[in-house]
């Protein structure tokens, strides 16, 4: 039972990055009236990159190559602990969310190091932005977990998310928590309004500029890891909303989660089509909205427990 759920979990984690990116792009092209790329276009792109011979700057050290693989493997490790289906994760133990957050942090550090390794000012600039925005995103995630932890009294990520559905104030806090997670998704997966994945100007990029000098299989690893990060956050949003418990009702739980993830991708695409990227100086304020939303739900839990 658990093994088959784990297999499904892995299948979703590994395949959804490609589908979600395709869906976001398809949504965006639908808004501007283009036909758009195929849904699985990014799979072809990755396959093409895997066959290429990379070009490496003479300035680069071995850390440049290490970066791509550390980012990918850290993403996979985090994926094994994030409960994208609801109350289930293949690797589950108490306080695993700390490991998730810090594994992703390790990935971020190596992304920045491999960006700075080629010695280009553009990439250093991107690394600085990534790091400073991360300092605003990280507390929001922990506030969110703190809320869930106080509400449920559980200690593992899957239990926190799963048991949240049965707490008395679930109906009130689900909206702010979803907003917080959506903002985190936009920040971590480099989507509009935090970052524009389609821009052509290095000076306005964040994530793209950091992988500017990557090529071949290393670029494929980086791009796949970035798409996987989006999948993980979309999966968390799905798990937060999904009313079915995958342990009790596996078919409905998995299907609803899948549909919700696709809806999140469409929502991300719609936001990208309808809004422009924020000026860099407003991004921290935008990320603070996530923290404020999580703080608000904390307040609801606290006041609710005090009987207000």
């Amino acid at each position, binding site marked *: 039972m658990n093994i088959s759920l784990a297999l499904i979990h892995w299948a979703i984690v590994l395949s959804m990055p490609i589908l979600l990116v395709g869906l976001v792009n398809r949504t965006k092209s639908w808004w501007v009236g283009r036909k758009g790329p195929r849904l699985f276009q990014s799979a072809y792109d990755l396959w093409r990159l895997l066959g290429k*011979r*990379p*070009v*490496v*700057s*003479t*300035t680069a*050290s*071995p*850390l440049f*190559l*290490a970066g791509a*693989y*550390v980012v990918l*493997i850290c993403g996979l*490790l985090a994926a094994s602990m994030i409960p994208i289906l609801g109350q289930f994760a293949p690797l589950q*133990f*108490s*306080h695993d*969310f*700390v*490991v998730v957050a*810090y*594994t992703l*942090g*390790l990935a971020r*550090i190596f992304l*920045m*190091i491999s960006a*700075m*390794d*080629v*010695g*280009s*000012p553009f990439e*250093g600039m991107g*690394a600085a932005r990534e*790091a400073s925005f*991360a*300092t605003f995103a*990280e*507390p929001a995630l*922990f506030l969110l*977990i*703190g*809320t869930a*932890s*106080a509400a449920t*009294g*559980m*200690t593992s990520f899957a239990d926190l998310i799963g048991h949240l559905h049965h707490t008395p104030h679930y109906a009130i806090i689900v909206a702010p928590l979803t907003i917080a997670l959506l903002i985190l998704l936009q920040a971590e997966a480099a989507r509009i309004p935090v970052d524009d994945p389609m821009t052509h*100007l290095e000076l306005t990029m964040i994530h793209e500029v950091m992988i500017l*000098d990557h090529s071949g*299989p290393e670029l494929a690893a980086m791009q796949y890891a970035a798409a996987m990060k989006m999948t993980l956050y979309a999966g968390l949003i799905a798990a937060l909303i999904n009313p079915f418990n995958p342990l009790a009702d596996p078919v409905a739980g998995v299907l609803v989660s899948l549909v919700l993830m696709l809806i999140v991708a469409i929502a991300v695409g719609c936001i990208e089509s309808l809004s422009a990227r924020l000026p860099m100086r407003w991004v921290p304020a935008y990320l603070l909205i996530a*923290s404020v939303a999580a703080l608000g739900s*904390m307040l609801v*839990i*606290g006041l609710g*427990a*005090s009987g207000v």
Partner: protein
Amino acid sequence: MNQLILAVLILMLGAGLCLLPIRNATRAGIGLVSQVLATLVAWSVVIPVLLGAPDITGEMPWAYPIGDLHFRLDALGAFFLSWSLPMTFLGGVYAVGYMDKYFNTPRHLGVHFALLNMISVSFLLVYTGEHTVTFLFGWEIAALAAWLLVIWDYPNEKVRFAGFNYLVSTHIGLIFLVAAVMILYTHTHSWFLDDFGDWMSHNPGTLRNTVFLLLVTSFGLKSAFFPFHSWLPRAHAAAPAHVSALMSGVIHKAGLYALVRFILLLGKPDEWMGWFLIVFSVISALVGGLYTVGQRDLKRLLGYSSTENVGIAGIGFGIGCLGLTWDSPGLVALGFGGGLLHVLNHAFFKCQLFYAAGCVYQVKHVVDLERLGGLFKLMPITALCFIVGGIAISALPPFNGFASEFMIYSGLFTGESIGVWAKLTLGLVAAALAFVGAVSALSITRAFGVIFLGNSRDSSLPEGREASRWMLVPMCIHAVGTTVLGVVPVLGLAMVAGPTALMMRAMPVEVVTVNLQSTIEILTRIGLISGALAVCIGLVVWWRFKAKKSAHRCSMPPGLWLRGANASHAIHRGQLFQRTSPHTSKASWC
């Protein structure tokens, strides 16, 4: 006890011999040998006590009015002694390389090594002192010896100023400590810590609160908590690298030792004390972390990160205090265990980072981030040690910083029923800790990237390869420690198990062991998984890097392709367009 007295005598003898009119190299040799001997002799009693042997007590007759001097080595003191002494020795080894150019000059190097011995003596006195006078005496030896070590380069006025600043600050701290001791003495008519503890655990109230505040102020000054940190960046930037390392990683841990010691004496602390410690430490961690971001001087940056890390350990102690108040063994175990483990881990990676900074200084004669660059290829060992320390200090797996912060987070997100508001407040603290982690990752990655990656920014700096082996070996030993404690966290937990059990004397034992056991299992699993993954990544990278020999390595003249340090300089000087496109249109490079 005899072994400890023997260790003190060896160290004092070594210090005395160092001052004789002999060759500098001989003096250094005497200093190092006496440090090794003293460490081994002390270990012979310290390690059994740490691993659960009964406490060792001893006394030495002394004249009125001080009376007989009592010593007691318990698990807490043994924990601090077990790593302080060998790390001081490693600092001495590093000093041989760092002070290399003075060996054949008239400059008296013996004083330096004698002072390092005196630092070890002060550890033995402070960590075993049961009599307040020995405690204060050791405290003062450490302060004066550290001051004299800081002003090694005394002809430089800035260094003298930094040293004076440190001297004044540490003595202001001493005034608070003496005030607290005077209050305790007037009520107990005794010099002994045990009697202090007896009085404090039975007389909660205003006076005990005053004593607590005085002590926290004093220990805060010693360990450079936030509002009392002003001496720290100056002293760390002015001192020789190994002295900065020892001060930050080892000597000023005495403040945290004393804090835990007095919490132990308090018996059951009031609830506000735990919250006060947590808030005080969170502010320290936040401010220290934020200070690191804007520093240009690598050693100042590392100095400010000490303020941040003592804050993180302090959060652990605060949680432990709350656990003592609420009779919750889980919180005590995770709080004090995590805090003490962080102290140990910080000693490992902070010394390592300062040693790396010293290697950079030795080769390039600057630690200014804006002038360095591209050192990875010249100094690969230093660079790898720096990045290992950097990942550890950002509390990321698989290195040791993660293990201790994981324990502290486990305490913050406790599953025990402690009330919703308390849980929410601890959740806020966890968010602050996450912010601190992200900020320190930012500043340390920036420092690493700017110093070791890319290309050199200043061609006027001296050419040079890796620093001397005397410096590399201690640094690599620390790096190995950082890695081993991260991949096999059980070792670190075994070291803090004794002192943590000491904190829980009054509690049922079974609950406690169960609590730590689950943490140990989880941490072991994480450590092994991440260690195995690190090995896999290493293999993949090695394979890819070999393959890269055949790959297309590309280097373009900087004027054509906007890459390399020349371009970054061009941006600084506003010459971007002239330099990149003398003949073509301005935006052709975009």
